[in-house]
């Protein structure tokens, strides 16, 4: 018993002050890509060619689809001019799929809180059922980590539950394989109304590196309606947590707040 108490003291309190304090991210963290298209030489498409998931396109100007982006170093390494670099901005979750497509003039429109009744019903107690539908266990692991003492998800009233019958929504990872299609549909149907869906990771948003394989359906949005998109491969746990807290209104955008007033 005494060793238990001594260990308890030694291990200390480790819960992050988030969202009140800023998270401690690694120096080499690759967050929101920053684009400086003024550096692009005419006709150059090196980054477009380098991107493994075709997340970069030139439509008049350089455009990045964060829903496809693996946040890998390939484009930044390939670019001879330093046009693309990954910033340390970890806030990436959006409410609409189209908000994830960015050019250099746009700022990312972060997710807004659940609308109306949904916020009233789910805002203070949100139970989620996680469904891995072809995920590589990267997203699953970094969602699971939210249950540790570091993130302590339960303090926000969010919990992962064992049955869809007990859940208010699904958190989907993976590109949705053909072999998980039916299971995802059935799990969604088993969640009582009103319900929400959260897509975590490049796979669940767009198919990720498996996009257009005949065995996958290119993301959760092709099977169920998605309310929150959290990009990354996998997203950092703090990016996932930030997205969830925006959804339940624990973190609000200044813009959203002024609209509400």
């Amino acid at each position, binding site marked *: 018993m005494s060793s*238990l108490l001594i260990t*308890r003291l030694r291990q200390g309190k480790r819960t992050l002050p988030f969202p009140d304090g800023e998270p401690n991210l690694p120096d080499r963290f*690759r967050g929101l890509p920053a684009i400086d298209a003024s550096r692009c030489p005419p006709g150059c498409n090196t980054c477009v060619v380098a991107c493994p998931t075709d997340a970069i396109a030139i439509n008049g100007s350089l455009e990045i689809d964060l829903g496809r982006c693996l*946040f890998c170093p390939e484009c930044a390494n390939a670019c001879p001019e330093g046009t693309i670099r990954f910033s340390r901005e970890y806030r990436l979750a959006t409410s609409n799929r189209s908000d994830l497509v960015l050019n250099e003039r746009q700022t990312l429109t972060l997710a807004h809180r659940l609308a109306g009744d949904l916020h009233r019903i789910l805002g203070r107690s949100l139970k989620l059922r996680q469904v891995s539908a072809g995920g590589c*266990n990267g997203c699953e692991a970094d969602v699971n980590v939210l249950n540790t003492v570091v993130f302590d998800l339960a303090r926000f009233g969010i919990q992962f539950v064992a049955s869809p019958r007990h859940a208010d929504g699904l958190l989907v990872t993976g590109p949705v*394989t053909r072999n998980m299609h039916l*299971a995802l549909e059935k799990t969604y149907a088993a969640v009582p109304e009103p319900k929400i869906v959260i897509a975590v990771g490049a796979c669940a948003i767009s198919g990720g590196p498996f996009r257009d*394989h005949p065995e996958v359906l290119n993301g959760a949005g092709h099977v169920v309606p998605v309310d929150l998109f959290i990009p990354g491969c996998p997203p950092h746990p703090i990016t996932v947590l930030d997205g969830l807290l925006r959804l339940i209104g624990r973190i609000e955008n200044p813009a959203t707040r002024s609209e509400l007033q």
Partner: protein
Amino acid sequence: MAMSIPSFHNGEPIPLATVPYLPVREFRAEIVSAVRTGFALTALFGMPGENGRVQLFGVLADSTAGSLSALRAEVNEAYPCLTVECPQAHWFEREIAEQWEIEPQGHPWLKPIRFHPPYRSSGIAQPPLPGATEFFKVDGDEVHEVAVGPVHAGIIEPGHFRFQCHGERVFHLEVSLGYQHRGIEAALVGGPNKRTIHLIETLSGDSTIGHATAYCEAIEALSETAVPARAQVLRGVALELERLANHIGDLGALAGDVGYLPTAAYCGRLRGDFLNLTAALCGSRFGRGMVRPGGVLFDVDAKLAIELSRRLDKALKEVANATRLMWDAPSVQARFEDTGAISARTCEALGLVGPAARACGIERDIRLDFPSGVFRFAQVPISKWDTGDVFARAWVRWLEIQRSAVFVREQLASLPQGRSLATVGPLMPSHLVVSLTEGWRGEIAHVAIIDGRGRLSRYKVVDPSFRNWMGLAIALRNQQISDFPLCNKSFSLSYCGHDL
């Protein structure tokens, strides 16, 4: 092994023409007799042959000599199965039947393992829905069946488990997977291309470094690339950090599965501290972007090396402190000991790998038996225990944690000078290479076969989970069904690594 079958080393490319074609009868006999004398069946797979036929490749590993050998045979519709005489072939032959519509005749349990349309299709047969097949059934008045999954409690990948129980006692467990099948092997054919490394990194996300290292060593061998020593050391560091994070997470989860919350809570956090070390290295907690053909994309300066060592030491002390509670708790040990035990004989017959095999007292570790990269120069002592139960699988992890930490510390203190990335040239046409890496779950085996134009004509991936799922099924026999989560975690297998 007959003299006509050449032997080669891990990561040594050989001309495809030197892989002997044997009549099926001799192909079988060679494999069966080699495995009887203690060779491991590293891989057994098909690829397109001539005139619509299928070539079967067998790769055998002789760990005492540290050498590999490969042989092949051509088949069309059927051949007499190996499994009856060589149980290690069980899962491989089910895979061959599913991928190529070849029947291994006499196979005792021929069912799909991934539920996808065959690669060489007559176009007539549709694959059954995943899990919708016959299951092995035990009959009797008081026998009941329990079906779990694919979607089950916890944040975990999907799989289906079918138990035949008598009361609480499990007579038989059948594991049915395939839900995570993303078609990676088929997509790798024709490569390498810009997506290849990303498919490799996501074969099993928690083994990003392990799989990427196996792949890169294969590509470097085939392109005769001299990988800088500095890159080899940094890969070794990343591989051991991956092992540390996952082993620590597993020890915490094992504590959680027997309801011992202090160690579960502390190790859950500490696993993150080790993932963060990998993130300090390359920006990603899972090592994405670190390992590339030719070396590594991220270098470590003297300041970062010191910083990593300092954080490693601190976290490791806390791990020792957190796990000591569990080792000293009789209530935990009573649940770990004698639970889910498998004998060394069963382990060898099934060809189990990694900590699961070393927990049966079997000395089997690619880092020592078939070393590549930095492990040719720096050795990590083998960690084993011999009771084959949950305790042994937990204890082997704890031994490995300590030894990996020593390795990482030593390597960071003596990083070789020089570059960390070399340029990779074209691949040698018509060659084959076998690349083995000891991932944290065990042996990762990649076999690359290059066609006449220097492209991949077949890329076979054997994740350690592919070898070990059967071990879990056997370990559950005569156990309480309530011990399934504990046994499952003690193997800690990958679903997507199996499903590919």
